């Protein structure tokens, strides 16, 4: 028997205008965690989709245990015990967790679903690996971390031996990432093999046995993690050294741009407020960061701030104007830019072209329309400039349908659009989610440039590294309240972590008051 469970040999795959995979060979050992690294658009997801039967390669063969196999569809892949968690989850939002897990692998008796056995199996699996899920919760009501666990359980339910995880950690909190890595280790110890895509070099160093690096559709090489370093990996990936620190100009805050006073937002899932009584301000030339564990009201706060949802109490003032009840368009015109948390739900119209998406917030402006008619030429020209400036990579430039772009490049397009818009306040939620280290470096520099140019930046991030690197002031949010304010120069990741977990002194006080 061959040393490898899966071999992808000389795989090539071309899309209109781009060779996504060019003669790539990847070999996966039994029981190993194999990382796949590469810039945004390097072809990682494409390669994995080929293995999962979603795309047919133009050339190349796939072997399992030394034998050539044909994988024409995900069903073939499942039959070969290959499972995949996609970069953007593929769950039915209005179904329960259990229904999603068994979907496509339902067992029935005389046409009726046999759910009891399925439920038992799911609960056993979730217990065995310590992945808590509520089988009866609806997908739309649970956090992304939980959705991720559902996706993984889906693979385990099908007894998959080869697990593909496409950027599983991009949407997770640091704690969840640690848990995931532990779970991956226990899978590997059982002899399952894992292919794991991530942009975070730390995770690769921590979890993986080997790493294959792609660049612009070509194979750069496969290395043993034991004999390599973060620096070498990033050099292999982008061809140059990456600086992980962000250079900032001196801190010179100006006038107050954003003033939030006593803002409360009702929750959609429970009766209490998701955000209660939040007050703070952001000044010109300042990056204020809201840190916190996912699900502590950040999402709802930003929704209320940007007008996507209604606040139940409190006021928002932007540049001296009260915008508490203004429409989204009015807030945008008053100088607010917003990089949304969910790029597929809010950030993009996936069936529009890249150019059309790049003017999503501005198509109605003088520059892009004349008497109600869209000025195609100016839209195209503008799109070309942004694409070039922000290095948004795609097959057909401005005409590319957004849906066909790689996840990281979709994100870059949104960031480009929002930063380039003339605004006084930039609200950035997880702006670098899913970006490669080179792109993160670039986006961070752009955000700092905005600050240095006197704009106010409100950053919401789950990544403590990003928080510590970028911000001038840190607000920690816990259970819908701001429980602490910190100066990044005088605090530590550990201290922030404590407050984020609700253990901070002030946090206890506020929590106590809420109960009373």
């Amino acid at each position, binding site marked *: 028997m061959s040393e490898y469970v899966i071999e992808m040999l000389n795989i090539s795959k071309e899309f209109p205008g781009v060779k996504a995979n060019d003669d790539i060979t990847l070999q996966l050992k039994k029981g190993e965690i194999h990382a796949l690294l590469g810039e945004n658009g390097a072809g990682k997801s494409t390669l994995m989709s080929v293995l999962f039967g979603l795309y047919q390669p133009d050339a190349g063969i796939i072997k399992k245990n030394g034998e050539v196999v044909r994988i024409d569809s995900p069903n073939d892949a499942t039959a070969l015990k290959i499972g995949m968690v996609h970069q953007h989850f593929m769950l039915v939002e209005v179904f329960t967790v259990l229904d999603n897990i068994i979907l496509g692998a339902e067992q029935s008796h005389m046409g009726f679903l046999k759910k009891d056995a399925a439920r038992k199996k799911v609960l056993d699996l979730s217990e065995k690996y310590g992945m808590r899920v509520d089988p009866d919760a609806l997908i739309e009501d649970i956090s992304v971390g939980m959705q991720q666990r559902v996706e993984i359980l889906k693979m385990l339910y099908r007894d998959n031996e080869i697990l593909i995880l496409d950027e599983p950690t991009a949407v997770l909190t640091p704690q969840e990432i640690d848990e995931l890595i532990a779970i991956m280790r226990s899978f590997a110890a059982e002899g399952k093999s894992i292919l794991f895509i991530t942009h975070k070099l730390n995770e690769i160093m921590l979890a993986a046995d080997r790493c294959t690096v792609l660049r612009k559709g070509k194979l750069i090489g496969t290395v043993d993690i034991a004999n390599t370093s973060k620096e070498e990996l990033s050099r292999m990936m982008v061809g140059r050294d990456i600086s992980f620190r962000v250079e900032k100009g001196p801190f010179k805050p100006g006038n107050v741009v954003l003033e939030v006073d006593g803002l409360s937002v009702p929750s959609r899932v429970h009766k209490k407020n998701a955000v209660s009584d939040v007050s703070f301000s952001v000044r010109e030339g300042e990056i204020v960061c809201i840190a916190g564990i996912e699900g502590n009201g950040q999402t709802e706060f930003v929704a209320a701030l940007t007008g*996507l949802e209604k606040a139940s109490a409190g006021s928002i003032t932007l540049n001296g104007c009260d915008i508490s009840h203004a*429409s*989204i368009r009015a807030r945008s015109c008053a100088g607010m830019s917003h990089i949304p948390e969910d790029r597929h739900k*809010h950030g993009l*119209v*996936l069936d*529009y072209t890249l150019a059309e998406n790049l003017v999503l917030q501005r198509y109605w402006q003088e520059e892009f329309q004349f008497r*109600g*008619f*869209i000025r195609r030429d100016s839209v195209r020209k503008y799109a070309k400039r942004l694409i070039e400036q922000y290095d948004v990579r795609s097959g057909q430039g401005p005409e590319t349908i957004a849906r066909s772009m790689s996840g990281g490049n979709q994100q870059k397009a949104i960031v480009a659009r929002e930063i380039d818009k003339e605004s006084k306040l930039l609200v950035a939620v997880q702006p670098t989610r899913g970006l490669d280290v080179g792109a993160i470096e670039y986006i961070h520099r752009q955000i700092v440039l905005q600050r240095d140019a006197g704009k106010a930046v409100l950053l919401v991030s789950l990544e403590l590294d990003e928080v510590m690197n970028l911000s001038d002031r840190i607000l920690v949010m816990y259970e819908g309240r701001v429980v602490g304010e910190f100066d990044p120069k005088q605090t530590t990741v550990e201290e922030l972590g404590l407050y984020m977990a609700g253990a901070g002194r002030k946090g206890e006080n506020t929590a106590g008051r809420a109960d009373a």
Partner: protein
Amino acid sequence: MKDFFRRRGTISLLGSLLSILAGLLLGFVLLLVFNPSHALSGLSNMLFTGLRDMSKLGKVLYTAAPLLMTGLSVGFAFKTGLFNIGASGQYTMGSFFALVAGIQFQLPWYVAVLLGMVGGAVWGAIPGIFKAFFNVNEVITAIMFNWIGLFAVNLSLNNMPMMIASYWGAVTKERTAKLADANPAAILPKLGLTESLGNYMNIGFFVAILSAVVIWIILSKTTFGYELKACGYNRSASLYAGINDKRNIILSMTIAGALSGIGGAIYYLSGTAQFTIVKSLLTMGFNGIPVALLASSNPVATIFSALFVSYIQVGGDMLQPEFAKEIIDIIIAAIIYLSAFALLVQGVIAKVLMNRRKNCAPAAREEDDRC
């Protein structure tokens, strides 16, 4: 690149033709089942009637006009993410308004068409308003308003003696007056086309084509169309972009209604059709659904799908009396149904071609080297 597009073009054409062929084959089988001795002549009737003489072609164009309007109506709403199943009611309202304008108020045809448009628009706007402000599914409201529209019109006509044919000297009581008797100025101009294309021909078809072009321009060239499509593709993202989706839902349904309304107006202002008081919904509105689907809601493609459906219908009418009206409808439905599989078939063809190409990959590579 050029090669690629050419191949895609051929695939989609091939797909459509194959599905139409399959539909006709099924139609033929059904003809055989119901009346074997007339099956062959029946098929040739279906296939060639529309081209047999110019007057039949005129009839195809005449029937295509309202079909095109309701097809546009359904397709336009669909682009905004709304399912306009209320085209029938809007069409009924359009017909009623146009006929009242023409007969009761003795207004000329262009005013009657405009009023028909208004009638349809109002009837389309109502489900839109319910959807926008109360989040009531437009399908439910539209279905109810189909019936409300139908019976409101029936009731009104029964109480408007001047509208009914008998007032103008005809014997029938259950249908509206002939425009030729009541108000010839309300009949759509025929532009002398009757000489060549028969009695049915009038400018209705051109009005419909013009509407298709206007809708195409709105959807693909204007900021309004950009907003509507954004709402249709991704409502959350359009919200995020500050697009007023309530306004757009109402506008979209209003325009969809207006299109159906024009459809009703141009059909009944032809001078050849009389509105009959019956208790069943007018099928013209529902036929707009397959017309729009066949064209993937593309306004320009809708012109061709409306022509196709109308062509089959005109051919189908020639099957009487050998075949019952209902059977003809079944056969037509089967043909249209299979034709809608065009997209599916395209996928299969593409896959087959791909596999073939993969198997002779070396040859293809040589070709690449040469150029």
